């Protein structure tokens, strides 16, 4: 039986490095949320890769973005085709450069969105949470102690959405002494801390418009 694990624990660049340096003839299989990928090794190089519809170096670069996923290495499996000719280390370096570039533009998008939201009169602070519940961006004054509560609320909103047959929920306003409006933005979650006297009905059209503009990017 080959090596089995999760790329959360043993990173993909390390797996590639090990197989190339040991000159293994092998197939590395990766499964991430029903998406499947494979990387073939021979002669100390990556010779072929597939991930969803991608083939070759693009597939390797896409798999390098995965933070978690089950992997399995099968020895003595030959590649069905040769689609990669670049050196493995160059492929890794280019993959890392692309990730850096993406991260930088995602950071810019998050920061701009927070700025746009807090510019709406009545909104004091804002936070964007990733689908994994991590803080993607937040304004300086947002009380991040309630982040675990917000993640639970978003989990519940998803559940209520499934229960309601007559419509999709657009959001929840909750008043715990401070008022928060919580809604989805694409695959991300948005938490807004409102000023005490803000009436959600008045600023909701502006929030909805901004969220609908930004949703595609999230």
């Amino acid at each position, binding site marked *: 039986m080959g090596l089995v694990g999760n790329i959360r624990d043993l990173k993909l660049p390390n797996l590639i490095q090990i197989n190339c340096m040991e000159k293994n003839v092998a197939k590395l299989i990766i499964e991430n949320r029903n998406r499947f990928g494979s990387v073939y090794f021979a002669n100390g190089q990556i010779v072929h890769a597939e991930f969803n519809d991608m083939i070759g170096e693009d597939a390797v670069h896409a798999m390098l973005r995965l933070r978690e996923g089950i992997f399995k290495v099968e020895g003595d499996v030959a590649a069905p085709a040769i689609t990669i000719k670049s050196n493995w280390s160059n492929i890794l370096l280019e993959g890392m450069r692309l990730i850096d570039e993406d991260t930088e533009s995602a950071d810019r998008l998050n920061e701009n969105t927070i700025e746009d939201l807090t510019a709406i009169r009545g909104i004091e602070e804002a936070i964007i949470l990733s689908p994994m519940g991590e803080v993607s961006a937040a304004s300086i004054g947002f009380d991040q*102690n*309630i*982040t*675990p*509560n917000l*993640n*639970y*609320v978003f*989990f*519940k909103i998803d*559940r*209520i*959405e499934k*229960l*309601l*047959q*007559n*419509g*999709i*929920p*657009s*959001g*929840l*306003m*909750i*008043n*715990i*002494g401070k008022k928060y409006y919580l809604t989805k933005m694409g695959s991300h979650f948005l938490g807004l801390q409102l000023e005490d006297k803000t*009436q*959600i*009905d008045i600023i*909701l059209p502006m929030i909805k418009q901004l969220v609908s503009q930004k949703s595609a990017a999230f």
Partner: protein
Amino acid sequence: MRSYLEKIKAVHGVLGVYVLNNRAESLAQYGTESIGKQNKEKIVTEILQILASFILKGYSVIDTDFMFQNGRLLYFNFDKLNLFVHCQKNVKISMLRMTINVVMVEALDDKKIVKMINKNIIDGKLLLRPDKVDKEELIYIERIEQS
């Protein structure tokens, strides 16, 4: 209780008014169950669990307003009980809030209502007990407790 709920139901756009304890058991209600009885029970339970998660962190929830495509479900802290108001999307919210505030003050002056409240006091965190939530949910609750 019914007369108080009737006054809230009289606000244009209000479909149903419900009073529940912290076990999500209905104590009084007036109006239609336009989101379905079963759905209503499940949804208010989900919302009460949200409220409980804040109680777990020492916050008390004053009110919530759950807005969905075709309506709104509002929650108000009614002393130690929970008041839910299901209304149409176009309800005049300031009129509704004002009416609820007046009605709640009146109701809390009524000895019968105070007796009913005292009879139904239940720990606000009850719905987060491990036997009330599933495994997936338990992870979220543990994270809240640890934070």
